[in-house]
């Protein structure tokens, strides 16, 4: 299945040619979970990758759906 990923913080810099306006399409196995997507993109846990879909933060074990618009950003603590 395919999901559309937008990368925030400095995550975008890790993918050469990444265009923030468009985001990028990522192909992952059907029924993949959040942690599978992060592993696929090589965003390590220590980097603090957080995934949100439709205004909700998802747990690592949450399943993603085909066509989902996924925002990935680094964990934040406050401003």
């Amino acid at each position, binding site marked *: 299945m395919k999901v559309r990923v937008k990368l*925030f*913080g*400095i995550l*975008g810099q890790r993918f050469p040619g990444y265009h*923030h306006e468009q985001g990028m399409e990522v192909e992952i196995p059907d029924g993949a979970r959040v942690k599978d997507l992060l592993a696929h993109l090589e965003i390590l846990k*220590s*980097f*603090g990758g*957080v995934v*949100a879909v*439709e*205004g*909700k*933060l998802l*747990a*690592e074990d949450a399943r993603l759906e085909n066509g989902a618009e996924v*925002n990935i*950003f*680094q*964990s*934040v*603590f*406050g*401003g």
Partner: protein
Amino acid sequence: MKFLKVDMSTKSVNVEDVPQEYMGLGGRGLTSIMINAEVPATCDPLGPENKLIVAPGVLSGTSLVNTSRVSIGAKSPLTGTIKESNAGGTVAAALGHLGITAIIFENQAPDGELYIFRIDENGDASLITAQEYKGMGTYALSEKLLETYGEKSSVLCIGPAGEQKLTAASIQTTDVDGRPCRAAGRGGLGAVMGSKGLKAIVVDQRGKSADAIADPEAFKEAAKAFAKAVKEHPFTGQMLPALGTAGMVAPVNSMGAFPTLNATQGVMEGWEKISGEALAKVIQERGGNPSHMGCAQCIVHCSNEFVDKAGKYVTSSLEYETIWSMGGMTGIDDFDTIAQLDRLCDDIGVDTMDTGVAVAVAMDAGYKNFGDGEAAIEMVEEIGKGTEFGKILGNGAAAIGKHFNHKRVPVVKGQAIAAYDPRAMQGNAVTYATSPMGADHTAGNVVGEYMSRALDPLKPEGQVEASRNTQIAMASVDCTGLCLLASFALTTPEGAEAFLKAMNAKFGTQMGPDDIPALGIRVLKEELDFNRRAGFTAADDRLPQFFYEEALPPHNKVVLISDEEMDSTFDF
């Protein structure tokens, strides 16, 4: 270790040893404990009985990174509660270098008189008449003061809003480049400074009489380890240097928790236009600096220098909270307008948060349209001009709400909320409602708990405890001079251990990990005691009714924390 006591009515300055009961205290711990002990709780905040206390943190002026926070305390004219508001810049380090634990301003100068309080490099202090600076904006004023007293000076000052004693007036302070763009914004402390007849404090940065460090070698080691922890943390070492606090726009919108159009929506349409990513790009393209060192000793560089299309400096630093208050709340999605509003607020000397929320409330009440940037600029300019409307706006969101008899006024104890909607982050609902300071995100922001998924932001369970713990942690951090942003490195075991070692090496103590929160609890207890004696009760620890009644899209939740739960926040 000395106090400078300044009597504004007799114009006398006394240097005193720090009394036993205040030994070892600094920052918020010192200002709050002293206010509770010495300021009558029911006094008029703008009257002679109130005191204005300026205290660097206990580590300010040492070699530990990111320790140039200065706490300013008084009874607040905005909230009627005890108040500590802290700011970055360079003044805390300058006071630390002079071994000054606090400056305490008492009484008031006769009406119409205005003074500068100046401390030279030997620590000698005097009051100097400042009539010629009357009504001056903070930018022109700082320039003049640095010209007169030398570039190696730190300035704390008020603008026209503080002189008019408006209750959203800030105290501005200079950054490492001498611009008055850092603020102790919250709680109207600029009005207290104005009421004393004090226009500015100028401190020479070249002092060489810092307090001794008990174990300098151990301190050096610990400082090195702490700096490493700050650099290695993904938030303080990567995200903040690249995007600053504006990097919060994406995550908070992605969570549906960005209060928009006067807190009627949780996601701003088109928020990507005012995101941290977009900001860094605009600044870079125009030749500004997206990763600027705002404060002395800083290795994080969360600050930025926003420039206009011609590459000319407009403001520093365009921060998340201002982008939200002047952008998200008002529906203005254009950086140039938001930056102009930020600059205006800094120059006039008003809190960007309370002012932005006040503008949004006025728009929501139908006074102007949401998204009308020109109207917003004109409204804020009126504060500087001292018009009748300007005075109401400069008294903050609560005053504007009353003026329009509007039903949706997002304030607690008279102070505007911050850029996290309490309905989409239930823990921040607890902090806004119960903090002794009024609605204040820096008093205990729970957002980190949601990011780590330790807690569900939309459910009431666990929120009181999370808010309690962060409020205790922040009350401790605010005593040390450590910048809130760098303090997130304390969430790693390496960072926490290094920081504790630095504290022990500084004081020659054997504090354990529990002693730091114990300090926070002590400070909160004193603050709550002051508020109780000032007449505040549990009934004041509530959010405005609309937060319990109007569901916030996209989650369509209201605040779910019961009154009983709220009241258990400080069961310690």
